[in-house]
């Protein structure tokens, strides 16, 4: 059914592209393109030679016009574009749509996939032959948060084919969210050190004015607190930056073995200071995963650093790596032999600023954001973090990543 409509489709896809690039004028450009090029197509049709029986009009004209396949054109649209039939069955979904919304098989009902009430309304209106006015906001929260402005329309007249075009708004949305989150988090977490600094300042100007010993002690505490605040801001910024880009899966290739060697080497001074022996249990061959090297470095550096700090009493940390599961995935486990974590805390460790024990966290210069950062990076990599622990026997943090 789709094939016969290819030329029209190509034009509309092109129109969609223009519309997507100039969102404010979208309805006009879209309608204009469809009308103008539809008319052109009609005229064209008359002087074009009869179509071959197989009906594969991939060429736009008999003469010098370039050969354009509608499918190629739809595939070239950098935004998710879905073409569907009157029954709401998907006729074609381009790569961007597959990437954004997971598997969209041809023939699958669009209504089953896009369940938000507004989307149901939009699709229903389109297939009922109404002209959709304006765009619909559509968002998904899993696996990563995303937001789109969706426009739709009929393809040609009487073709009984329709399209939905998704314009990605995630970034804008995320910047807004980041701003409000940042302020909420920062103000909450910076209040404590600020309050303590201002308290000490007051004492220094008042009762402790002429007490050099106290002054020295207070100043060093204040220095510690400002260092803590700046660490906190660094971590908050890096988390916010990560959250902003969290929608696209990084495309690079990373050799986990080599990456972990370098993480362990980088942290050797720290583990040495803490008196922790880092044992490496790596397989012979390379484990390749899709990802961003710097970000994955941060994941394993955070995990190893935690293991050394909080599992210090165990004296050793084992970093192991293997291929496991069905389908096989790369699994990296950082295991310590410290005091372990009580079960009620385990599900909440990746929450921002969740602390099991604020005192010891502060002593270890923790900001409460390390594992939140880990979780974010892994989500972006389609990976996950599993935590197992028995009190008194240490803890194991396992990272699962799909193989390249």
């Amino acid at each position, binding site marked *: 059914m789709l094939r016969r409509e290819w030329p029209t489709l190509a034009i509309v896809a092109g129109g969609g592209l223009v519309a997507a690039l100039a969102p404010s004028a979208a309805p006009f450009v879209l309608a204009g393109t469809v009308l103008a090029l539809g008319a052109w197509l009609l005229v064209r049709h008359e002087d074009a030679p009869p179509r071959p029986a197989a009906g594969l009009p991939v060429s736009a004209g008999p003469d010098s016009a370039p050969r354009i396949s509608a499918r190629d054109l739809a595939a070239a649209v950098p935004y998710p574009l879905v073409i569907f039939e009157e029954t709401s069955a998907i006729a074609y979904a381009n790569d961007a749509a597959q990437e954004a919304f997971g598997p969209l098989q041809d023939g699958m009902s669009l209504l089953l*996939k896009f369940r938000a*009430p507004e989307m149901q309304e939009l699709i229903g209106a389109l297939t009922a032959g109404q002209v959709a006015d304006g765009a619909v906001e559509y968002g998904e929260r*899993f*696996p990563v948060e995303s937001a789109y402005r969706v426009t739709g329309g009929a393809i040609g007249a009487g073709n009984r084919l329709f399209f939905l075009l998704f314009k990605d708004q995630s970034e804008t949305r995320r910047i807004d969210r980041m701003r409000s989150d940042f302020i909420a988090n920062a103000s909450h977490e910076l209040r404590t050190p600020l309050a303590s600094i201002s308290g000490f300042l007051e004492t220094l100007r008042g009762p402790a004015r002429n007490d050099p010993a106290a002054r020295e002690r207070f100043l060093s505490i204040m220095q510690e607190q400002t260092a803590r605040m700046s660490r906190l801001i660094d971590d908050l910024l890096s988390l916010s930056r990560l959250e902003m880009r969290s929608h696209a899966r990084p495309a690079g290739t990373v050799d986990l073995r080599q990456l972990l060697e370098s993480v362990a080497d980088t942290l050797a001074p720290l583990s040495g200071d803490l008196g922790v022996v880092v044992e490496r249990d790596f397989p012979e061959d390379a484990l390749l995963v899709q990802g961003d090297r710097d970000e994955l470095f941060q994941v394993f550096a955070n995990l190893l650093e935690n293991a050394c700090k*909080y599992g210090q009493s165990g004296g050793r940390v084992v970093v192991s790596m293997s291929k496991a599961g069905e389908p096989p995935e790369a699994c990296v486990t950082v295991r310590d032999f*410290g005091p372990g974590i009580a079960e009620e805390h385990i599900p909440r460790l990746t929450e921002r600023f969740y602390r*099991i024990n604020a005192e010891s966290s502060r002593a270890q210069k*923790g900001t409460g954001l390390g594992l939140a950062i880990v979780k974010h990076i892994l989500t972006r990599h389609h990976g996950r973090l599993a935590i197992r622990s028995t009190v008194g026997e240490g803890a194991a943090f396992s990272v699962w990543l799909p193989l390249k």
Partner: protein
Amino acid sequence: MTAAPHIFRTFDEELASLAKRIAAMGGHAERMVDHAVASLVHADPDLARQVIADDLVLDEAQREIDDRAVIIIARRQPVAADLREVIGAIRIASDLERVGDLGKSVAKRVVAVRDFLPPVSLFRGLQTLSELALEQLKGVLDVYASREAVKIAALRERDGGIDAMYTSLFRELLTYMMEDPRNITPCTHLLFCAKNIERIGDHATNIAETVYYVITGDQMPLERQKDDRSHRVVMPAPAVPDGDRS
């Protein structure tokens, strides 16, 4: 819905439209839970009222799906995959209707906890819990659309995360109640909210099992154990001197 079309095309259409109604219902349920938790966290009684009103949509949808399913059974006397499709629709609709009720129950409590200002971590915990439940719900409804039964096992596994999270919140709420008796009223409401969200996860698991049955014709193995340990929590244990892992 099935591999080969039926001789009566209208039968195919009836089955397809049943599935679409389920999906629409699912969309409403997802939205309700999302808004219910948002109204709780942001203390927004207007949004809560809207959630409460939305529940009616789900109730009506469930009745309609039941009626349609009964009519299909009576008229077409479906067998095998078709029968599973129809029975599955009835079961999923009733689970989704319960999800809506639980969402409504959360929204109803917004007024009661409006003036309670718990530590940020508590609401963050509730949000994480609801995200886990919603992710589960979205996952099963996506499988219902894509028919990829292989993905169901992993989804069902994840329900364990919701239970563990709920147990953790249970402990945290007990701590606040013990700290100050004035916290007891709002914390009890929040406890019910957490419980409701945890139940939403259970309904998502039920739907996952139904979807698996509809697609494959086999029942899922009974391997999953309930891992909610809150019934064993008597009083909050002192924190292990361990430090935070962040």
